[in-house]
């Protein structure tokens, strides 16, 4: 039986932990299909996913987090899924929150639901620069969208087909989608809400936000938000 919901997991060199995460999702969110997008891993990530029986899309080159995710959205659209959930492969996101994220989307109360780690549930520590960046861009997004954005970087989201289509377009950033995407969504007439979730610190591997990247992040986000605001909306809702 095919489900109407697809869980998309972009993975880059996540061997050793990915199979456990898939089993965990199957136990806590039964009834949803899973697809893993292997973003040009050099380890046995793809093999470990195949062994669990979940389909794996192997990118021939490393496209980056957003590029891998987008592949998953394109897959979901072509297979006719009505709802999609994106989550990280590093064990940061707790699968038991998947139904909670999906609920407002299914009810039609929102087009996309983001899991926020800063709404009271659990404790989450972040580096100083990153924390400042999140606060700053979160407030810019809050002002633009007109609702409080507490966690603009959340990669734990549930969405409907409209948002999948939007994310599959060329405007979607290939590195790390952030506050700019929230503003883009708003301007495209798509409604986003946040629900509180718990997130864990990374268990294995290196975060994609390390080294000099925070600096690039701040610069890129400013530019991206600016051009997003200058750009005319070209996305047409398919009602």
């Amino acid at each position: 039986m095919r489900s109407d919901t697809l869980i998309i997991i972009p993975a880059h060199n996540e061997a050793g932990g990915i199979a456990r995460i898939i089993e965990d999702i199957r136990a806590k969110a039964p009834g949803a299909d899973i697809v893993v997008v292997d973003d040009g891993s050099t380890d046995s990530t793809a093999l470990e996913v195949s062994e669990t029986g979940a389909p794996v899309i192997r990118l021939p080159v490393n496209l980056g987090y957003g590029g891998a995710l987008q592949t998953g959205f394109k897959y979901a659209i072509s297979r006719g899924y009505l709802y999609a959930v994106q989550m990280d492969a590093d064990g940061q996101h707790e699968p038991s929150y998947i139904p909670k994220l999906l609920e407002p989307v299914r009810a039609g109360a929102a087009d996309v639901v983001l899991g926020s780690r800063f709404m009271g549930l659990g404790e989450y520590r972040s580096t100083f620069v990153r924390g400042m960046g999140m606060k700053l861009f979160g407030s810019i997004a809050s002002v633009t969208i007109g609702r409080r954005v507490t966690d603009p970087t959340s990669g734990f989201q549930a969405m409907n087909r409209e948002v999948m289509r939007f994310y599959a377009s060329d405007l979607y950033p290939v590195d790390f989608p952030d506050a700019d995407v929230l503003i883009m969504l708003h301007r495209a007439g798509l409604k986003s809400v946040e629900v509180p979730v718990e997130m864990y610190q990374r268990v294995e591997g290196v975060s994609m936000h390390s080294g000099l990247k925070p600096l690039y992040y701040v610069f890129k986000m400013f530019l991206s938000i600016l051009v997003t605001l200058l750009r005319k909306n070209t996305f047409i809702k398919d009602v």
Partner: protein
Amino acid sequence: MEKVQIVSLIVSSIVLLGVVELVRRGRLRENYSILWICTSLVIMVFAVFRHLIDWLGRLTGIYYPPSAFFLLAFFFLTLISLQFSVVISSLTKSNKTLSQEIALLKQRMEELEKKGKT
């Protein structure tokens, strides 16, 4: 004609001929050759009509007229670099789309092969 005029005329002719030859052999696409051809033509014009540099210097308020020439050269080189960045961006985009399509097709193929076996 002064020595400097002859030298710049020769250099710009070599650049122009080189660009045309590259396009003829199909090693340089026409749309990327336009800026190069413009650059060498402008150098030629300035080499033949020397007083143009003085005029340009006065026009832009540059104290030492020959540096107006450097400004011009710098302007064209910047333009060419910018064109490269634009081209690289569009190549990156199509590269991304192609990689995604290939990955999706490969997955579909494997799935169908598996289905065919059982």
